[in-house]
């Protein structure tokens, strides 16, 4: 099933404004979904008979542009052997996205990583704390505007 068919199934259930299809790009086409709707739409994508996206290959954070961060979801269906890429774009000053860790449990740690390195806050996540960096780390290192700290616990950081 290709992305336009998936979109038409989604459009029959959800409001049209919450989902946008991007095709005019050199890479594979993807859907842009509103941050507040990602949980409901993900649940539908997993449980709908014709879609059955039972596997989340990857969830990544992206510093999208000057004002926005993004979360990229790569889904795969082992039943139907089709895949789908979804992006959720959120403003940097309020980077809140609904969690999908209740739908695909594997995203628990993926979301913690995106929170750790990009500062994206996943609402309703069961255990949202840093996963790689120390708990007392300041800032989100993979953001383009990240400034390396001079000292960490008395240790000079720069070369």
């Amino acid at each position, binding site marked *: 099933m290709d992305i336009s068919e998936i979109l038409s199934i989604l459009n029959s259930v959800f409001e049209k404004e919450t989902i946008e299809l991007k095709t005019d790009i050199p890479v594979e086409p993807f859907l842009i979904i509103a941050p507040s709707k990602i949980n409901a739409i993900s649940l539908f994508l997993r449980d709908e008979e014709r879609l059955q996206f039972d596997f989340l290959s990857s969830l990544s954070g992206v510093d999208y542009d000057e004002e926005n961060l993004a979360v990229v979801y790569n889904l795969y269906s082992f039943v139907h052997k089709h895949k789908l890429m979804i992006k959720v774009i959120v403003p940097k000053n309020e980077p809140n996205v609904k969690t999908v860790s209740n739908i695909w449990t594997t995203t628990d740690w993926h979301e913690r990583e995106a929170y750790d390195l990009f500062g994206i806050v996943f609402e309703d996540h069961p255990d949202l704390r840093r996963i790689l960096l120390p708990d007392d780390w300041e800032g989100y*290192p993979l953001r383009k505007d990240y400034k390396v700290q001079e000292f960490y616990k008395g*240790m000079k*950081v720069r*070369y």
Partner: protein
Amino acid sequence: MGILNKLDSKVEQFESGNIIITSADKLLNWARLSSMWQMSFGLACCAIEMMATAASHYDLDRFGIIPRPSPRQSDVIIISGTVTLKMATRVKKLYDQMPDPKYVLSMGSCSNCGGPYWEHGYHVLKGVDRIIPVDVYIPGCPPRPEALLEGLIHLQEKIRSQSIAKKVS
């Protein structure tokens, strides 16, 4: 007997064969350099080379170097890999837990100076010598087992030249 071969000209042997005389420095140094027990501890890819060096092909055991599972029983700590700032606090704690006399080998570019992370590694300590004193630096990325062995032999030579008496300045 090993000590007779290693203590060279300073050893005097009596005819009965049961008494030998040497300086305290020579005896202590001989004991220390012949049993440099290393802490069973690795950080990154250098640790793979270190494990290969400890295995049968290169056989660290023939130098009296055996891995110990506790810092309390260790004489040498080999910093084998990238020291992240998160790990640096643990490395310092492990070093502090070791009893004196203790020695530090910095293995590979990362622990010498930050290695490939020297410029953009926001999370990497640029050289383990910023938190603990290093006795021998081994270059390489990662160093071959031969390089690690040479570093350990250099450390043995360093121990051989030590003295328990304080130098008069």
